């Protein structure tokens, strides 16, 4: 090959790298055979002490990943293809995304959904920026009961174009509702705001008055951005029913493993009238000259590869294989299965809260109804949480890490995987740390 090219050595192919900038070191360890690299990865995996009992949620949830999901995303025709720029040989990917878009629209009650974003936090940030473009306003309001990591990401994205982020304080006093008050929101919102962002269920598991919050936003001509937990939509009202303009969500609960925080999948949905300001890829149905139905990336004039500096967002690679996992999950569980997941999560969260209260170990911090996550107040929570962790029990999330005013409060999540024995063992262990 070298002689075909007309050079005498490989180094000749790199002669155009100026001598002053050539690498002077490359101290990467030597190669490993398959058995050696497997041993190394097993070493690292073994260094994780997976808890034997966990009630940890706070934005990422331990749900069943049905076996069939791994089968579908394990097919290398899906995993080793790329962005479907040549649709004739990408109909597998394109049709599966069209089905995904359809499922997300149906779940959220909205008219159009994108092919995915990096995660729920960036989807929320992009939704806020989309609202600014739609309204041509440069301030956004966000409830303090929205997941703190989501709020941090929204702040970072808004800092780009200089959008001001105003926090609407939720009622977080002890014994308070733990919810965002529509009157409080209304008192803050004015015609300078592009949107109000609220989360359902909120970070504390509380069930927010979303319809009234939407009305408060609409009263000043602002968009209402609903950040939702997807399994809750089996039981709770779809955002399209209560007047959401844009929906963002973390799709991890839909068949995606915890995997120390990623890859996850951001969901975004909106009304058709806003579609030209929507960031991200969209797949549309069409046909070929022989009358065969097919799917293509469409409305690409919004995107970076066409519009460059005028694009709605810079997003290119998204989370397609995770979107496929979510679509497979929703198809595998169906409406009945999703309902069962939600009902069992809701029941077990209540079972957990009741067991803690009955044992006199703690009480609910907030008065409002909650979904499958609940904030429990108990003395000396930080020390006891650490002691339980040493025993392989993760007693939820220590809320004071993000809300310093909410000391001695644990955020406990339950899912369909939560077993009665785990609740009993947790209560006993918690009692022993008193």
């Amino acid at each position: 090959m070298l002689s075909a090219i007309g050079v005498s050595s490989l180094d000749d192919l790199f002669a155009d790298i100026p001598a002053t900038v050539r690498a002077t070191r490359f101290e990467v360890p030597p190669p490993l055979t398959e058995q050696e690299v497997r041993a190394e990865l097993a070493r690292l995996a073994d260094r994780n002490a997976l808890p034997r009992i966990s009630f940890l949620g706070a934005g990422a949830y331990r749900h069943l990943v049905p076996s069939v999901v791994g089968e579908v995303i394990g097919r290398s025709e899906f995993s080793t293809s790329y962005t479907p720029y040549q649709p004739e040989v990408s109909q597998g990917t394109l049709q599966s995304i069209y089905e995904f878009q359809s499922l997300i629209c149906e779940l959220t009650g909205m008219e159009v959904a994108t092919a995915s974003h990096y995660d729920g936090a960036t989807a929320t940030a992009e939704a806020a920026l989309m609202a600014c473009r739609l309204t041509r306003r440069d301030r956004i309001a966000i409830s303090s009961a929205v997941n703190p990591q989501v709020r941090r990401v929204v702040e970072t994205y808004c800092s780009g174009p200089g959008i001001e982020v105003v926090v609407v304080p939720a009622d977080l006093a002890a014994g308070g509702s733990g919810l965002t008050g529509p009157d409080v929101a209304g008192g803050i919102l004015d015609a300078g705001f592009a949107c109000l962002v609220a989360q359902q269920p909120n970070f504390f598991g509380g069930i927010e008055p979303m319809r009234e919050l939407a009305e408060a936003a609409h009263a000043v001509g602002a968009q209402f951005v609903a950040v939702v937990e997807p399994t809750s939509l089996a039981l709770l009202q779809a955002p399209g029913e209560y007047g959401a303009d844009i929906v963002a969500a973390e799709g991890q609960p839909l068949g995606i493993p915890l995997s120390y925080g990623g890859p996850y999948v951001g969901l975004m949905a909106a009304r058709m009238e806003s579609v030209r300001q929507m960031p991200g890829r969209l797949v549309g149905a069409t046909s070929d000259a022989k009358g065969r139905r097919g799917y293509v990336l469409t409305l690409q004039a919004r995107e970076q590869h066409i519009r460059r500096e005028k694009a709605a967002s810079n997003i290119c690679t998204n989370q397609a294989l995770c979107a496929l996992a979510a679509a497979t999950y929703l198809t595998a569980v169906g409406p009945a299965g999703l309902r069962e997941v939600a009902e069992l999560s809701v029941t077990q969260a209540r079972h957990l809260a009741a067991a803690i209260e009955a044992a006199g170990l703690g009480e609910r911090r907030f008065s409002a109804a909650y979904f499958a996550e609940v904030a429990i107040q108990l003395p000396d929570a930080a020390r006891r949480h650490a002691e339980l962790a040493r025993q392989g029990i993760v007693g939820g999330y220590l809320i004071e890490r993000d809300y310093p005013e909410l000391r001695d409060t644990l955020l406990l999540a339950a899912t369909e995987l939560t077993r009665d024995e785990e609740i009993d063992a947790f209560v006993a262990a918690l009692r022993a740390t008193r």
Partner: protein
Amino acid sequence: MGGELTVVEPLIFAASHPGRRAVRFPVASAVAASAAAGQPALPAAQLRSRAARLPEVSELDLLRHFNRLSHLNHAIDLGFYPLGSCTMKYNPKVNEWAARLPGLAESHPLDPDELAQGSLELEWLLAELLKEISGFAALSLQPAAGAHGELTGLLMARAYHRSRGDAATRTKVLVPDSSHGTNPATATMVGYSAVTIPSNDRGGIDLAALKAALGPDTAALMITNPSTLGIFEDQIDQVLSAVKAAGAIAYMDGANLNAILGRFRPGEAGFDVMHFNLHKTFSTPHGGGGPGAGPVGVSERLAPFLPGPLPMLADGDPEAVIRNAWRGRSTPDARFALEAADARPSAIGRVRSFTGNFGMFVRAYTYIRSNGDAGLRQVSNDAVLAANYLRVQLAGSFDLPYDRICKHEVVLSGRRQKREHGVSTLDMAKAILDHRIHPPTIYFPLIVEEAMMIEPTETESLETLDRFVETMRAIAEQAASDPDALRGAPLTTPVGRLDEATAARRPDLRHEFGAT
């Protein structure tokens, strides 16, 4: 749409029958239900009025549907995929084995650090390896993709300028006219205006034009090296000096790192910041459009601004940890932790939740350890060898806009076929599909007329390359002898050319339930 069209594979909704499902769940025990009854119920007014019409299918029907869909895709695991700029190399399956290890796959990102020592050590080791490979002083794994890394890089550039008091005047980001669309799109997202710098006739950035554009109003230069033409910037030292002299930040788009492993370390050369594409150079699967990962490496002066929290070695000697890890051993007294939230007050803030696309870190770490120093050097040697081989073999059939040694990709032009026979690069790309080969990237970079960007990667055999050469030569000949055949291509794919104009004019973006 509907009745009159031939459907290749029906939508999953067509297989739905009431009462079917693939997965069932337990019901709550009597004990649980009784305990729950005393807690506040879900408010009736906020319950869903109508269930979502998710499909009701058996596991078998579900699996057949997705298997048949998968058969409609071309993929690296089926055939050659020389999509320029994307680095469609083979994804080793041991990476998948590693990512599925329960100890890693079931690790919750908010678990107390002492329960996540494996996850933290892996992130820390991967960061050390990426820093060594690139020559940068510090690194964040957080960004989820290359474009996300670009956003992170420009936000850090702005934070840097703010810290020096001249952010208000530095409003421009310079990008070459050959740049990937994400570069100017990112500039806009950060509130900058993008200024385009022309390329010279050798395919490098026009140094005089760059120097003329650089000034006190320049925040950054974003440059890809090798460029999107597959050509190494042989004046990169002068480019970097000029950018530094103007007080601007030098950003390298690391999409083309596959060309230069072991030969050029951007951090060592003087770049301030670079994003990696783990789904390109480091073999994590492309997934039909993600997930990727776009870690950013930075020089010392940008380190304070990295998005965190970063994984750190809280106790223990870093040299010992590295030495042991390179031998496959743990260091007993080493303790890893996520840095405190306020550890670096100048940080730009979070760009996403948690620490990043950890599942891709596992795969990239496995790839780097498998290849090692010799393997990674060979990756670049073979990638560059393959691209240059294709360059010389195809230069007789197509115009070669820049007749010089390329790196891991080569850009050809279909303008001869267009002018002489009315056959476009698009037509020729569609014809390639009939040969079970994925076409190169077409119509990019924008500065080459009828562009075809070919990136073979290092994982293809000589036989595969030669078959591609034969195919391309045959298509070039067909352009002359039978252009109508090319304009009708593809003929053997599941669908033919699709009506994209109507798809955009009359968007049909979701299934209409009730219409089948």
